[in-house]
């Protein structure tokens, strides 16, 4: 057991820290889930890309630095500790890209990845439909063959597409075999949103940002070279993505370590007479949990580095970080007491963060579904 990072890794950490200190926007950017803020965040993404910090773990030819998982974790720790902006490109980078690396043709990789990393093209996720949420396999959006045009015509609707109102592309599952049911007959398609036959309607989140969108398809076109993986194999192709969505890539420990530190700072700067002693216990517990997530991740990454594949344990990770995130923000609001409801001023980040955190137990498979997965696939309890 060696819990120290190598000199090279420590050097990398120092470089990242120094670069972030020099470049992180101050004052912080407005929310990236508004049209204006999204634009400013794309500029930041471009800055990251030019410094080759946008996708450190990717191959150099796609804009990365072939960084190890360890270096990626170090980057994430430093990134969030520095208070750097949210990543508006994350759903492409963390959810789509792993699938493209695994299933994409060389041509697809060349055309898509670098533009994704630079923010030139931005990707939103097209999984859920009005009647297919937790029950994703019941989706009904169809892709009809158009041999003449050499591709597929889309009909139907996707919903809860994060930042769908601002993105240039959508990745998602569509039913290419109308006869097939549930998990069969689905295909993973990559869809340009800037074309006729597509209508995007922004949907306002709890916090008032237009962070969601509904996307309507009316004969929108997807050429054959934008099919990811085999036609009809969409479900198994997509599972790779949902796996990484649940696992550490989407929400690395660095985020929560940074939030936990901010929470402790808030408590230390709150007049001690108004820090209820009962809160100290809860804050210590949340801080311990953030550390636990960090070390559980180090344990997992050591396994992955040794060649093992991530398993259903990812469901435990998703339940843990999503409920920890809610807890961290709830405690901050309790420290703020009657002022917690204010959405301006220095502490407004906490209510905004709380509203954001409340989505965690819902998306990427509700925590109720995740607990079923833990019980059935980790513990071996019977499905029925």
């Amino acid at each position, binding site marked *: 057991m060696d819990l120290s990072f190598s000199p090279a890794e420590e050097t990398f950490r120092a470089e990242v820290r120094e670069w972030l200190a020099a470049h992180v926007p101050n004052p912080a950017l407005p929310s990236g889930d508004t049209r204006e803020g999204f634009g400013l965040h794309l500029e930041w993404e471009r800055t990251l890309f030019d410094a080759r910090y946008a996708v450190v773990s990717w191959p150099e030819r796609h804009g990365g630095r072939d960084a190890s998982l360890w270096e990626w974790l170090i980057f994430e720790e430093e990134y969030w500790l520095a208070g750097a902006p949210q990543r508006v490109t994350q759903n492409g980078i963390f959810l789509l890209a792993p699938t493209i690396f695994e299933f994409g043709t060389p041509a697809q990789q060349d055309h898509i990845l670098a533009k994704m990393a630079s923010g030139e093209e931005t990707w939103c996720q097209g999984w859920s439909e009005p009647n297919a949420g937790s029950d994703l396999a019941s989706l009904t959006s169809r892709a009809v063959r158009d041999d003449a045009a050499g591709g597929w015509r889309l009909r139907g609707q996707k919903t809860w597409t994060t930042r769908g109102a601002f993105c240039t592309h959508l990745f998602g599952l569509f039913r290419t075999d109308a006869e097939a049911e549930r998990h069969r007959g689905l295909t993973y398609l990559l869809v340009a949103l800037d074309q006729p036959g597509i209508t995007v309607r922004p949907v306002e989140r*709890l916090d008032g940002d237009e962070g969601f969108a509904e996307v309507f398809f009316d004969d929108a076109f997807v050429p054959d070279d934008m099919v990811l993986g085999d036609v009809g194999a969409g479900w198994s192709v997509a599972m790779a993505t949902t796996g990484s969505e649940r696992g550490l890539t989407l929400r690395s420990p660095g985020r929560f370590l940074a939030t936990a530190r901010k929470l402790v700072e808030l408590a230390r700067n709150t007049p001690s007479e108004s820090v209820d002693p009962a809160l100290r216990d809860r804050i210590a517990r949340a801080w311990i949990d953030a550390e636990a997530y960090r070390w559980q991740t180090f344990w997992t990454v050591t396994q992955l580095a040794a060649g093992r594949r991530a398993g259903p344990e990812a469901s435990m990770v998703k339940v843990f970080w999503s409920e920890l995130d809610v807890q961290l923000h709830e405690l901050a609001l309790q420290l703020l007491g009657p002022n917690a409801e204010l959405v301006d001023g220095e502490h407004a980040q906490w209510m905004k963060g709380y509203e954001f955190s409340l989505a965690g137990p819902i998306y990427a498979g509700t925590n109720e579904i995740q607990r079923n997965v833990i019980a059935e696939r980790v513990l071996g309890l019977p499905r029925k």
Partner: protein
Amino acid sequence: MRFAFTDDQLAFRDAVRDALATSCDRAALRAAAESATGRTAKAWTALADMGVLDALRAESEGGLGLTEVDVIAVLEETGRCALAEPVVDTLFVGVPLGVVDAPGSVSVVAPESPLGVWTDTAEAVVTLAADGMRVYPRAEVALHARPSVDPARRLFEIAMEAQRPPDRGLGDVVLAFRRMVLGTAAQLCGLADTMVTMTVEYAVDRRQFGVPIGSFQAVKHHLANARTALEFARPLVYRAAASMAIRDREAGLHVGMAKAAASDAASVAAKAALQCHGAIGYTTEHDLHLFMKRAWALSAAWGDARWHRARIADTLMAPTESRGS
């Protein structure tokens, strides 16, 4: 011992419920959030016309001469529909203390917080401090607007000219504080009830995996927990109201217990409601957020659950005879 409302009290509650059903429906709430005042004027007028705001004013002074217990169910109704009005401030403090006449309103400011609610449209500001109560005509205080997560709640930081002696003694401060805590607790029960009810409706209608999501045990248990928390918070609120009405020597303790339990019940209900609704409940297009955000604000206002429990613990563990029952 008869722990139930009288027919008169129930009739009063039902009349107010009916009036608010039309004057403070969800469209009215959304309009209030968009409006300049954040208030639901029609509902306020309705309450004034029904004499609700004069309920605690002495009959000799043209009021109904009622007590806290007569209106506690009415205040629960104002929570059920998330009424965007300073009804607790006005009904419980402003009018009975003769600070305003309905339909005028007051904004009561807690000792712990510099914030008043709907203060800009109030006739007077009432501040509660360790040395007494002060009453300022609206025009004599400077207001600095602060936005709340609840778009209907209009918050203001209040600044007034140099300290002047209090207008009323500590007795009125204690009375006003306890009434604000009690009224807020009642509204939290109403909010919790609405959130549970609308979530049950959704869970019955919404189907996934070929069945209503309300048939999943996890959804059932989320909602059962919320309903149970409410079941045991409500009696504490009604009992505290009765204690206030008879000036029970432990009314302060009872009011604190009520607020602690009601704040927790509303928080449990809000969490269960959002989790069971899923993404749809996470949008402002759905009505849940109107009630959830009010619940967030009110469970923190006038002392959150932990704040009240800390004081109750002090009382219980004081080296005097324990308050066993």
